[in-house]
């Protein structure tokens, strides 16, 4: 036996394995086209079958949790963008809600509705990137570019609101960073009117495609018990048949006023996860439309800059601790904020969904083909910034 | 022209064949053997055996040798270890080989004096049609027997290469 250089994998020398088969150690990543960032999977192969898989993370560790401690509460909002860079507004929202809970602050309904709308657009953004890259992993190149076409529209909307395409930092403690720009209503309406037909386009290419079904159905199966035990959350759990969604279970930012379905499937394979996420896109579009049509949005927006007073005067957050959970596109995003009564947080811990989900990788891919590994890890929709922080 | 072609490909064939024997790495030997087979295919063309030439490339070079290369790659067989041979082999091997060769050549020259010469187009009976006709008339029985042989070989190979006997 010899050390493979990868902790956790001891590669048996040629022919020395128990079954007599030859094993091969393959380092997938940190630079590999389908590990989506800098994930490294040390994979032990028997032919094309994965016999052991050890994920190695930390290549994108940036010490964000440490940095929170030297920023003021309001400054730290910008840090949250960098965590899950595909869903920045969800992170903004989680952090702001946590601090607002500490402060006991209730923000104006208009701002809440605006937050819901933009967060759902973020969910669309994130799911579009996921669908595109996942399809690309399985070889469907066109879906990727279709998805990015719509994502581009969403990013333009974000840019219109905040001046930034990705690192928006648009939500601030107490409300929003800026007054919404002129013409936003029409812009979002145009986008959301055409969006469901675009989803139909993706489904035309994939949902009934025999090769797609062959590649995804029955692949990456995992039981619900295993998932709960391993800390998986979000669409993966919903694809296993559990109706769990923080937007429903523990409503925040007036989600309880919106009418939407929580799609579930019971097959718990890659195809089910695909179906769940596609359906979530439709539901998100529905929420955005409700927010747009809602009475609240038609009134004046002056109350949105309610936070002005807080920003200019600064604020002290009362001592205490909160754990605020929101449903990010990837699953349960929790912010554990500890305050010691000063102007900057004493400790912020982010319970990021990717970190939890990624833990299930070995359970999911061991014993399957290497091609299924790609499909399986693609179906998890992790973001390495979200994992490593 | 014919002599030049023969000369070129005969030399290539012999050099490749020597390479097959002296190379220590099996994959180099295999590639050299493909070279031998390719040159032989050209010589077959010269002898008017066009079907056999094509079959040589398709079956030998394109299928059998690919199988060899495949197995070598699969086993990732390394170079052969050098091991001391007995003194007699080291001293007598090459001379004996040369002697054997010389003797053979001598008999060949004796048996086939320079009377009959090969030139391109001297024999045109090697077409696919002619071979097909002979195959399905005179040689029908051997042909059927070989097909059974291949079937047996396929089954045998599958049984042997299966992961574990159960």
């Amino acid at each position, binding site marked *: 036996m010899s050390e493979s250089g990868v902790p956790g994998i001891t590669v048996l020398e040629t022919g020395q394995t128990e079954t007599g088969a030859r094993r091969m150690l393959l380092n997938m990543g940190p630079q590999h086209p389908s590990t989506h960032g800098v994930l490294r999977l040390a994979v032990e192969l028997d032919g094309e079958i994965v016999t052991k898989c050890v994920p190695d993370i*930390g290549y994108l560790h940036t010490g964000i949790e440490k940095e929170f401690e030297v920023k003021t509460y309001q400054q730290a909002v910008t840090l949250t963008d960098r965590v899950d860079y595909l869903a920045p507004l969800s992170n903004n929202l989680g952090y702001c809600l946590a601090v607002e809970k500490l402060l006991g602050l209730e923000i104006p309904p208009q701002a809440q509705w605006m937050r819901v709308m933009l967060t759902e657009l973020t969910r669309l953004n994130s799911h579009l990137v996921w669908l595109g890259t996942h399809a690309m992993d399985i070889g469907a190149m066109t879906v990727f570019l279709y998805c990015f076409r719509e994502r581009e529209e969403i990013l333009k909307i974000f840019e219109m609101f905040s001046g930034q395409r990705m690192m928006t930092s648009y939500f601030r403690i107490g409300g929003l960073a800026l007054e919404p720009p002129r013409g936003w209503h029409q812009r979002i309406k145009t986008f959301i009117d055409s969006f469901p037909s675009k989803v139909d386009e993706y489904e035309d290419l994939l949902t009934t495609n025999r090769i797609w079904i062959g590649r995804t159905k029955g692949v990456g199966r995992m039981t619900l018990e295993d998932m709960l*035990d391993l*800390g998986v959350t979000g669409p993966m759990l919903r694809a296993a048949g559990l109706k769990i969604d923080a937007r429903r279970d523990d409503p925040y930012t007036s989600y309880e006023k919106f009418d939407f379905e929580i799609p579930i499937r019971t097959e718990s394979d890659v195809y089910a996860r695909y179906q769940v996420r596609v359906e979530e896109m439709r539901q998100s579009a529905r929420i955005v439309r409700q927010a747009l049509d809602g009475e609240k949005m038609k009134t004046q927006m002056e109350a949105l800059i309610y936070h002005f007073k807080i920003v200019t005067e600064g604020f002290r957050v009362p001592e205490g601790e909160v754990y605020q959970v929101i449903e990010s596109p990837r699953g349960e995003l929790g912010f*554990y904020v500890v305050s010691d009564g000063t102007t900057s947080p004493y400790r912020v811990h982010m319970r990021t969904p990717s970190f939890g989900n990624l833990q299930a990788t070995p359970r999911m891919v061991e014993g399957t083909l290497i091609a299924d590994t790609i499909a399986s890890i693609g179906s998890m929709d992790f973001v390495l910034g979200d994992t490593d922080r | 022209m014919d002599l030049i072609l023969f000369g070129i490909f005969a030399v290539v064939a012999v050099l490749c064949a020597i390479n097959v024997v002296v190379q220590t790495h099996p994959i180099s030997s295999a590639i050299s053997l493909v070279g031998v087979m390719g040159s032989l295919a050209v010589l077959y063309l010269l002898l008017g055996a066009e079907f056999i030439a094509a079959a040589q490339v398709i079956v030998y070079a394109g299928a059998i040798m690919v199988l060899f290369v495949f197995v070598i790659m699969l086993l990732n067989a390394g170079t052969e270890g050098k091991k001391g041979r007995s003194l007699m082999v080291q001293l007598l091997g090459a001379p004996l080989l040369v002697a054997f060769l010389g003797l053979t050549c001598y008999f060949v020259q004796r048996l086939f004096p320079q009377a009959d010469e090969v030139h391109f187009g001297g024999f045109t009976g090697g077409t696919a049609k002619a071979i097909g006709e002979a195959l399905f008339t005179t040689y029908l029985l051997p042909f059927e027997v070989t097909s059974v042989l291949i079937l047996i070989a396929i089954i045998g190979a599958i049984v042997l290469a299966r992961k574990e006997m159960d």
Partner: protein
Amino acid sequence: MLPDNLRDHAVAAALAAFDAGATTGGKFERGELTLEIAPARIAGVCGFLKHDQNFVRLSSVTAVDRYPAEPRFEVVYHLHSIQPYGRLRLKCRLSGAKPEIESVTAVWRSADWYEREVFDLFGIVFRGHPDLRRIMLPEDWEGHPLRKDYPVTGSRV
């Protein structure tokens, strides 16, 4: 001992009934229930909460460094019960000299990476953890960055 004002919380009461000495304190603030658990009993308490109180999910394990106060570390567990919906925070206080606590990986497998992360960034050792290595930082990294006495700026030479 369980503070009296928490008696009407079913979970706290059940836990007190299961192991009276396990709870050393607690509070209910901003709608969130926090129970302080004696570090020695954390594994047993977690097993009870998972199997008897339906806390099937472990949301996260993290730590807070109260340097220079003593006991210095708080290991914080966030538990989640899906049916009925409920969240619970457990807290264990550890001394700064040799922070060690029992691992809960036997209860929830998801504790694996969370505990590794805490070990990596705080240097808290989890006894009984199957594979306690650094997870974020390189194997040869010195120090534990999320400790309060670890500088935010500056680089190692």
